[in-house]
């Protein structure tokens, strides 16, 4: 546009370097403007071609599948010989289903323990590693490594570490004279064991906190110190507020991830002992994929939607709570 060099190009009618459609052009300009419009249409066409793989996928695999899933939750079906519309019966069934409530309690207990503990642990490690340390990148690698390991591999390693009689942890405890619990084998310790295992993989959170901490300008901390604030005041009045966006992001991701816990419960405990680790995803898997002898796809879909509703509500609550405790430097908060 710059080559026109007339004041006209700078008028508010021209937006983003492109001529607004309503611009009254004099005669000679007309073919040119039509060419522009067709360029614009060309750009739109190509943009839609470029996003079409994603868009088709979204329509089929996400939007379509979700709609279908909602539909299935009103049916009793195994997709073969049993197809019956049952209305809200699957949801009503949940109310009286003790196993379902057990799975809700297990999932909430797991999430309620994992999210705060892994937040504190990851933040703690990040704060320590953020000090000027020798070997800091080596240490960072060590703390991060477990986060790379697949859920199944994590489960297998910890299954061995937590083995009640021959496991490393109980043997180490025995060396200092403590008789360790039965960990995964006992009803009280099974969920805490899964939490312990999840804490081992907190490396991603730690990296995010570390990045957040390094993003805090040192001048601010210096200024606070010069103004006479001790390390504790600097930490709580400067570092923590500036880190709240990172904490918020991590907590949201952790909550979403924790509610969906499955791999460890499947590989290590199979939901046991006595359903002590029957998480919601484990339960919907058992209902949907035949561990109770039947493929109850309708009921499993209803459970999936219950889980989705829970995750969605918690995410919304967290997003709503932002204005109370998350400090955005850009001044998003009023």
């Amino acid at each position: 546009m710059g080559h026109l060099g007339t004041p006209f190009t700078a008028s508010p009618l021209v937006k983003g370097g492109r001529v607004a459609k309503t611009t009254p052009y004099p005669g000679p300009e007309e073919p040119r403007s039509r060419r522009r419009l067709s360029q614009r249409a060309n750009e739109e066409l190509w943009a839609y071609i470029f996003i079409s793989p994603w868009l088709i996928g979204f329509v089929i695999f996400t939007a379509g599948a979700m709609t279908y899933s909602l539909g299935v939750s009103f049916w009793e079906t195994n997709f073969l010989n049993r197809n019956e519309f049952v209305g809200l019966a699957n949801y009503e069934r949940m109310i009286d289903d003790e196993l379902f409530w057990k799975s809700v309690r297990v999932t909430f207990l797991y999430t309620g323990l994992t999210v705060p503990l892994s937040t504190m642990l990851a933040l703690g490690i990040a704060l320590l590693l953020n000090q000027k340390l020798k070997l800091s990148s080596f240490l960072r690698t060590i703390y991060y490594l477990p986060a790379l390991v697949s859920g199944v591999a994590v489960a297998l390693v910890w299954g061995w570490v937590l083995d009640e009689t021959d496991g490393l942890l109980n043997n180490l405890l025995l060396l200092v004279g403590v008789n360790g619990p039965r960990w995964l084998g006992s009803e009280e310790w099974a969920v805490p064991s899964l939490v312990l295992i999840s804490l081992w993989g907190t490396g991603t959170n730690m990296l995010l906190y570390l990045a957040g901490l390094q993003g805090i300008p040192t001048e601010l901390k210096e200024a606070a110190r010069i103004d006479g604030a001790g390390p504790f005041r600097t930490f709580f009045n400067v570092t923590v507020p500036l880190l709240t966006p990172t904490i918020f992001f991590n907590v949201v991701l952790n909550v979403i991830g924790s509610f969906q816990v499955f791999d460890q419960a499947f590989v290590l405990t199979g939901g046991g002992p006595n359903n002590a680790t029957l998480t919601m995803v484990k339960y919907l898997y058992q209902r949907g994929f035949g561990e109770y002898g039947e493929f109850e796809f309708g009921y499993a879909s209803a459970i999936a939607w219950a889980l989705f509703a829970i995750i969605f509500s918690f995410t919304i609550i967290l997003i709503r709570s932002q204005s109370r405790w998350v400090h955005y430097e850009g001044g998003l908060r009023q």
Partner: protein
Amino acid sequence: MTSMLPKVSRGRPTPASEIRTSRWARLRPGHWLGRLLLYATVLIGAAAFALPFFWMISTSFKPENEVFAYPPQWIPSTITFEGYTEPWRALPFASFYQNTIVIVVINIVARLFTCSLAAFAFARMRFRGRNILFLLVLVTMMLPGQVTLIPLYRLWSELGLVNTIGPLTIPALFAGQGAGAFTIFLMRQYMMTIPVDLDDAAKLDGASWFRVYWNIVLPMSGPALGVAAIFTFTGEWNAFLEPLIYLSSFENYTVPLGLALLNGQRRLSYSWTMAQTLLSILPVVTIFFFAQRRYIQGIVISGVKG
């Protein structure tokens, strides 16, 4: 910003001498004690995090009779490689690895192409509905996969693709939904930082939009492509729930399924399980070591700016 700072201003600028004093104060014995405590904490913590790895390595080389020794033995008296070789005879581990590699490679190639194409459009082209569609990308990132599990299972079984790699690879041709949405987001963020003038210049020279994407923007998006490739690799290499649902016969199993199967065979020794577990995490760890900087960069871009 200033409201965040403690209000203890003394009403005059701090003289330089005071700053000097406080800097000297760091050399007091208390400070050294603090450093010592800091190092002790960090090292003990790191040891605790590394312990399961050492235990896994140590167990994997142990002969049967030493696995259960008390007190725990860190260095086996005789080293055996049975745990590494025997399971390959007992179970078709070679095909587990082959299947996993095929799935991973198809996912990386297909997802990188379709996601970068979409990311290019979202970052550098104008079209109606762009903002709403991008919002849908973000929403997809947050949806729990379990909700679509059963409908998709139905879809794949109607298409006769259950117990093939189809359900685990075909979605990648369509930008791979959940994880793919994340890839689109990551690459779009990166492509936004490349100057648009380059596109305009190429367009003036008569280049097509595809050429702008393929010859200009894509070659400049190396770092983002690298991050996306690494994330896709790790995610697919470690995937469990979906392969578990779709793959039913041994010869089609992926590595995580093979491990779970090995673990299920209780008569097998822990040294076998540990050796195979160790083998299975080796590729991911190796790639992490080679691409550490980029990997961390990717996590930070996606996390802090999200």
